[in-house]
């Protein structure tokens, strides 16, 4: 097992009477993309902001590469790249100036190629206030990565990005991971987390209610696999018709949709029934539960597995 780069143990964060984060623990290994998921107010941004050294912790132990983010934030600055959910740059600062400005503080040469990679080369002399929200976010990501930090903390990086930019960022994250960069990705986008993250933690009301690989999390849910079938003669459109392992069924857009705990036997039984009735199979889809469905299942029932 690779070394733990980020360690969070019994971490608590309190705002007045509100407990934002309530004793969570997790670790992130080197080269891992770790997804931090949760509805609004779950404690994702509070966790990230304490790890980034922007806020102090109210309990527990947090370490990034062995450093305490609150006490050793200066040492940590050059080791982490941070894209904040809410931030800004001076209105009159140009894109190239921003790259030069922050690179100088990190004591590295400006990485203009990264601006090119993130689609900012045509806007290189544009002032910050002239950039669209998506371009401002791309610039924030470029600045977070410009000094090649070994640890990257991204808070909703693809919010407001168009599809090509989102794909480009995903490719970039993949490349960073190949180079051994450790990434924490806080996101609302379940498809993104499922695609990019090696492991995810689902936060709810300040607690981690699920932690594991996306496959592990989807497997530990209610475990229903969705089987959608379309036939020429619609022989499956009978409400009383049942198959092995089925817990729920519905009919939608000429498809009979079944939720099964035993998809193998369900599919075999469905095909046998279609053949026996002399109908013809047009389409058959078997989909495992998505992370989004698992997330909704967890957050919908108020947490806990």
């Amino acid at each position, binding site marked *: 097992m690779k070394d733990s780069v980020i360690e969070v143990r019994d971490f608590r964060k309190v705002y007045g009477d509100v407990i934002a984060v309530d004793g969570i623990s997790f670790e992130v290994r080197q080269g891992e993309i770790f997804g931090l998921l949760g509805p609004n107010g779950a404690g994702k941004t509070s966790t990230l902001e304490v790890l980034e050294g922007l806020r102090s912790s109210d309990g527990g132990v947090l370490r990034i590469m062995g450093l305490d983010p609150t006490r050793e934030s200066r040492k940590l600055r050059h080791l982490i790249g941070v894209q904040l959910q809410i931030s800004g740059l*001076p209105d009159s600062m140009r894109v190239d100036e921003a790259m030069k400005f922050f690179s100088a503080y990190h004591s590295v040469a400006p990485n203009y190629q990264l601006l090119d990679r993130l689609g900012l080369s045509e806007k290189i002399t544009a002032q910050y206030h002239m950039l669209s929200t998506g371009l401002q976010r791309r610039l924030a990501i470029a600045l977070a990565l410009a000094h090649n930090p070994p640890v990257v903390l991204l808070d909703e990086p693809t919010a407001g990005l168009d599809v090509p930019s989102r794909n480009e960022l995903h490719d970039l994250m993949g490349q960073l991971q190949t180079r051994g960069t450790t990434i924490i990705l806080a996101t609302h986008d379940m498809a993104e987390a499922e695609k990019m993250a090696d492991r995810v933690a689902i936060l709810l009301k300040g607690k981690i209610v699920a932690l594991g690989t996306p496959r592990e999390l989807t497997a530990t849910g209610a475990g229903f696999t969705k089987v959608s079938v379309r036939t020429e003669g619609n022989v499956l459109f009978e409400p009383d018709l049942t198959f092995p392992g089925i817990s729920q069924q519905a009919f939608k857009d000429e498809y009979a949709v079944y939720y099964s705990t035993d998809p193998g036997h369900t599919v075999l039984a469905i095909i046998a029934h279609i053949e026996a009735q002399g109908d013809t199979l047009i389409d058959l889809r078997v989909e495992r539960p998505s992370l989004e469905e698992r997330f909704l299942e967890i957050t919908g029932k108020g947490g806990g597995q």
Partner: protein
Amino acid sequence: MNAFANHFSFEFRTGIRDKTLLLMNYLFPIGLYIMLGLLMKDLNPPFVETMIPAFIIIAIMSGTVLSLPNPLVSARESGIFRSYKINGVPAISILTIPALTTVSHMVVVAVVITATAPLIFGAPTPLVWPGFILFFLLTAFAHAGLGMLISVISSSSRSVVLWSQLIFLPSMMIGGLMIPYEMLPDALGKIALLLPATYAMNVFQGFAQNQVAAIAPLWSVTILLAGGILSFSLANYLFCWDSRNKARRGHPAIALSTLLPYVLGIILL
């Protein structure tokens, strides 16, 4: 050093690119200098004797007290300081570099005023140039410190205006700029000793013009220096990165202790 130079260069350019800063750093003080100069030359001819230091002080107050705090408050409120913090920009750079660049703009304005006032208005040039430079530096230092402190303790543009005008307007009226300090009634004279402008004019009289002043100019040097040091120290102590994170080392009311040297001035002088 590269980072500092780069930051300084960016802030200096911002002082020209930003229309509000351009107005307050250059257009307002130079415009006021020309208009009031023309007016006062006829209305109050003795004013010409002190117009160079008076308009330099006005320019410095315009750049430091009126215009320096607002962009800093906006930057904090819009999350710019958060971006700075996560990228390793130290608080000391955020506090000192805008002050230094503003003072650099003020040097340009001071040169314009000093070079043109004798030609346009027949104003006397300073007799002792090192004394004149001392006057400029102390005035800029004390006012830049106050500007920084206002930016740190103000939560909005409205409170910036309030604090800034509390310094600017009394300085214009009783700070010795339009009416000599010696001519003020006793009560107003005491209040005037709360204003850096009063001491700045005194330093100019004593060290740049070799005149006998109402206050021993060495006292004024000491008070301006102490006021500047105290303001910058308090600004550094009370500095807050983030309007979303209100945690700071002390209550903003501590900022009032920056008046301590000036209050001592009232007691001692």
